[in-house]
């Protein structure tokens, strides 16, 4: 039995359309926007799922429906036997969520006061609360910011505090909507490290959205690509992310054919390959090329998320109206 089941999820927003010109202001027109058309997937307990897709693809909408905040227009969501919107109060007591672009902590209160308030809101037993809180504080290195008002925290500190705040009631499911947005490298690493640990050691089911491919690579065993309100791909990360090999030769680039490597670009002294690391690894590929040709420079790159998404759009473009 899956912990999270989503079937044929759809969400339509109605947005006001304004015509140019003064008189047109009097006439209000509405346009329907389908944020989600048909999203289905299921998740087992302890899975770590990455949700990627461009802005407006429907990632956040999906998370907000799964959190019981938004009511779906059509489709079915069942999480541990609960229908999120209909059983909202029972549901939200058993999930944690972080919406990266908003704050759930009280701006004027010190972090610790906000945590105490959440203890009462979620009706957590004081002894259990103290233990959970101390563990989270240690894991997220929050000792030094506990007494500071939230408004004085740096973005990295605030995000770590936000994540701790979402877990004080020890929920078995965690939704993270862009948890690394705007963070510097050390903070990103800290957040990733923590999420991984939480998933492995506590068996917490994690669903996260991001625009950062490195988040996905570091964390997710499984990735769903969402676009135009539909699931475009649902597979393991490795399949999704191919690598690029850029080679500059000392003379004009030769024509090379290697199994597992696909030629993308051939220009003057440079070539670009796309290769599948499961068929041929980077060291083997580099060795093959360098053995036969005079090479000036070699770089292995990972395509940006935009490229991956764009490729999926291209692949699935035909199915769109």
């Amino acid at each position, binding site marked *: 039995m899956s912990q999270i089941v989503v079937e044929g999820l759809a969400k339509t927003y109605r947005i006001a359309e304004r015509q140019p010109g003064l008189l047109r202001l009097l006439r209000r027109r509405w346009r329907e926007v389908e944020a989600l058309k048909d999203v289905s997937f299921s998740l087992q307990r302890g899975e770590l799922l990455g949700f990627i897709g461009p802005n407006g693809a429907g990632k956040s909408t999906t998370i907000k429906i799964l959190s019981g905040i938004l009511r779906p227009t059509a489709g079915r969501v069942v999480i541990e036997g609960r229908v999120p919107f209909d059983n909202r109060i029972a549901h939200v007591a058993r999930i944690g969520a972080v919406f990266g672009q908003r704050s759930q902590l009280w701006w004027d209160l010190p972090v610790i006061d906000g945590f105490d308030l959440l203890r009462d*809101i979620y009706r957590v037993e004081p002894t259990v609360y103290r233990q959970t809180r101390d563990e989270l504080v240690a894991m997220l290195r929050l000792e030094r910011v506990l007494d500071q008002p939230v408004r004085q925290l740096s973005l990295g500190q605030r995000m770590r505090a936000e994540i701790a705040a979402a877990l004080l009631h020890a929920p078995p499911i965690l939704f993270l909507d862009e948890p690394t947005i705007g963070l510097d490298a050390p903070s990103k690493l800290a957040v990733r490290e923590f999420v991984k640990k939480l998933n492995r050691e506590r068996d917490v089911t994690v669903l996260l959205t991001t625009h950062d491919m490195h988040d996905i690579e570091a964390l997710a065993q499984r990735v769903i690509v969402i676009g135009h309100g539909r699931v475009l791909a649902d597979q393991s990360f490795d399949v999704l992310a191919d690598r690029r090999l850029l080679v500059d030769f000392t003379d004009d680039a030769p024509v090379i054919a290697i199994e597992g490597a696909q030629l993308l670009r051939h220009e003057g002294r440079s070539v670009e390959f796309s290769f599948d690391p499961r068929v041929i690894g980077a060291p083997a590929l580099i060795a093959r090329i360098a053995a036969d040709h005079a090479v000036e420079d070699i770089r292995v790159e990972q395509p940006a998320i935009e490229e991956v998404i764009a490729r999926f759009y291209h692949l699935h473009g035909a199915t769109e109206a």
Partner: protein
Amino acid sequence: MNILRPYLAAFAARFKTMLQYRAAAVAGFTTQCWWGGLKVMVYTAFYRHSVHAHAPMTLAQVITYTWLGQALLALQPWGGDPEVAAAVRTGAVSYDRLRPVDTYTWWFIRAAAWMSARALPRAALMFAAAAVLLPLAGLDAWSWRAPADATQAGLFVLSLALMILLGAAFTMLINLCITATLTDRGINTLAPAFVILLSGNLIPLGLFPDWIQPALIAQPFAGMLDIPTRIYLGTLSGGAAWAGLALQVFWTLTFVMLGRKGIAGVMSRLEVQGG
């Protein structure tokens, strides 16, 4: 007790946070002092020069009414809860819906805490100025007088508590309007027009013509200042005082029912956009 725990915690947290804004309380008190003093002088001039008019209230009653109105200003629903307005504007309303609490009660308690924490220092300062300092300065005629008697004082405390609940219930209707329209500007401009006139804040309702008195007492805004104040002055006593309290209860329940109905509709149509 465990059921109430989140709400009690939210009340205490909001109350404490609001008490931090001491400068705002002093500023508000100063404005209300000037405004109150101005009104007291205008009424004194009126009563001195229109000796032939039939006055339904004595000058001393009108003056005490004025000071009470100034002291309790922050308990009147002048607009929506700024925290709700901010949450709606920024999308943080998502987090309000993420809590395992009844959203109506949650917002209601916070509005009640917000209003009473704002009112507490202002009322204390106003009492010190108008009821203690003015008599000491020899301006006894312009001062805030004690309640009619102990019974009236007790009923006034009850009515004051109901005034807070009624005000919070009305604030909730404004909050819902803000949530539905996504802006607090329209309703926050419209609502005070009704509150200032119909609550008795501008002119005591008792000074309006006799024929309109039943309608003025029966309308919901009377419970937001006029009924408690009339009970304090003793112009509403015995059965009439209990009828006033009943009216406050009636309008509170009506607003709560409307609000609860409204919030279900607003929340099922909620749209959170942009990430």
